[in-house]
């Protein structure tokens, strides 16, 4: 098996496309999952009412949840593909911190969360913090 360093390095456009794929599929998966969970109300209440099996059934039978898991799986395999062509030190922090920003935008647009100045500031601080931690 060849090491990533022995492979031909991707062009900047290819690297951008790979990271963008991870970020977009990951955000789509997380937003769909969040929408699924938001649509069912407090899971603790459901578990108290229907038991753990009822709670699991309530979650896994949601089409939005299934779609979310599908996109998360695509994101995972996109990550594996990118790691096969690029270094973890680039892909890891870039994907993690950019996903925070795209999640915030998607949460505002699609989940209609009230992303005020406080949450934007937090998202940007955490995004930079995650990037710095990986260096």
């Amino acid at each position, binding site marked *: 098996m060849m090491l990533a360093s022995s492979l031909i390095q991707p062009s900047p456009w290819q690297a951008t496309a790979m990271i963008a794929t991870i970020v977009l599929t990951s955000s789509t998966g997380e937003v769909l999952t969040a929408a699924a969970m938001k*649509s069912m109300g407090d*899971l603790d209440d459901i578990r108290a009412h229907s038991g753990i099996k009822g709670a699991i059934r309530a979650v896994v039978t949601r089409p939005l949840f299934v779609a979310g898991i599908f996109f998360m799986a695509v994101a995972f395999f996109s990550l594996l593909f990118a790691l096969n062509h690029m270094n973890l030190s680039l892909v890891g922090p870039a994907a993690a911190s950019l996903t925070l920003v795209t999640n915030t935008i998607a949460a*505002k647009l699609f989940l209609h969360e009230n992303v005020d100045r406080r949450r934007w500031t*937090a998202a940007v601080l955490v995004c930079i913090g995650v990037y710095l931690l990986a260096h």
Partner: protein
Amino acid sequence: MAHHRLSIKQYLILAFVSVSVPLGDASLSRGMTSLPAISLAHPLTLIAAVFTPWIALGILLLIGYFASYLTALSWADLTYVMPATALGNVFVALLAHFWLHETISPLRWMGVALITVGVGFVAQGPASTTPPLNLPAPINQAENLPLDDVFEKEQVR
């Protein structure tokens, strides 16, 4: 709902979301490094690895993470839960420094500080700013409404 505050139990769930990922990853890493090198020619050895104590513990922690993450998303915004997840990175850095005596560079300490401040910003605000998507506002706001009524209305719909 716009000023939904969390209970102690819900804060504990968020705390578990934060610490379970780094602990799970660390368990997986410890388990995998203690095993002899696994070749892709013998993929079944990967399945056997799942039943070793450290890897089994890591998998249990990550299953626990996903369950608590989903639970948190059922009563808190995604933009509220995300920073809590990132707090796990801070936990790893502190663990590495104070327990494993690893050297943390100034840039990483800055990262720790930024994440902590970011989480502090979000934690001061409401956990949820939206009603559940499929439930009409009256049901969502009527906290004392028996759950049976909610489920019946859901089924009718």
